[in-house]
């Protein structure tokens, strides 16, 4: 089976992204990633021919398909980002609820024990 350049690039990108998601993330890198994806989106909006040319170059064929792949990557990025935010908020909620529970412990009433 002969692989198209696009197939290698897409699979490699997904793995690179997973590595990024679990090991390499920082707030600044997240923002640069976000800005980069937005910039690509704007560029392709103004130069639709560019998407087709890049797509042809790497063997995807249609520019619309290239956009689809970029969109998928962006969605993947967003879901990881949101999952991480939720995890942080969850941890904060846990510590707030826990402290409040510890503060308001009710001891057995006198004579009950």
């Amino acid at each position: 089976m002969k692989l198209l350049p696009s197939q290698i690039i897409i699979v490699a990108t997904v793995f690179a992204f997973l590595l990024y998601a679990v090991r390499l993330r920082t707030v600044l890198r997240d923002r640069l990633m976000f800005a980069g994806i937005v910039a690509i989106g704007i560029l392709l909006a103004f130069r639709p021919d560019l998407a087709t040319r890049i797509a042809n170059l790497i063997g995807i064929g249609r520019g619309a398909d290239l956009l689809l792949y970029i969109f998928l990557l962006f969605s993947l990025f967003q879901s990881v980002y949101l999952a991480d935010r939720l995890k942080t908020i969850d941890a904060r909620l846990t510590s707030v609820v826990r402290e409040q529970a510890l503060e308001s412990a009710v001891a057995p009433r006198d004579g009950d024990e």
Partner: protein
Amino acid sequence: MSDQARAAADVWVVVPAYNEGAVISETLTSLTGLPYRVLVVDDGSADDTWERARDAGVTVLRHACNLGQGAALQTGMTYALRQRDTGYVVSFDADGQHNAADIPRMLAPLLQGDCDVTLASRFAPGGVANDIPAAKKLALRFAVLLARAMNGLPLTDTHNGLRAFTAAAARQISLSQNGMAHASEILSQIASRKLRFREVPATVRYTAYSRAKGQSLSNGLNIIWDILMARIR
């Protein structure tokens, strides 16, 4: 006071409870007869769990919202460890599946200084699992194999809510898994902190109530997912 009795007074039994109003009074009655301090952590129940626990004459804490059994257990352990003279912490399920008479056997190896943690096992020689549903048994066997593969701990029962810790060992346990994956988290922390542990045969009673409330097989898959995600991070 004998050594045994003095040590017993230093024991906190932590009972995490979520919507257990139907059975918690009975569970607590079996515990308050023993010379231990009992603590219920009501994990934001919608029913009368909190009132019934308070009426049972035990210490009661309440989560303002439901966080999960792991979170409730951690809150209870934190509370117990902040109290004066706490020597031992026992975890005990609220749903009536454990036998309070097993607690002294759980504590004995700790009192003798033989180990830091004891874990109840319904499958160890001498353990009892009355009327255990077949699917449940299969899921638990699988969990045992999984724990062996991941932590290398030679256990026969990895998801038993009855455990006993010395205060020093309990201080080394820090649960971030709020849900049911905390059982595996405890084991992996026992392994990584190199705590000395022992399994103690104990009884688990399956009633219609605990069957309906207990962990389903599909929830087991959710637990595995939680564990794997925690590993990646």
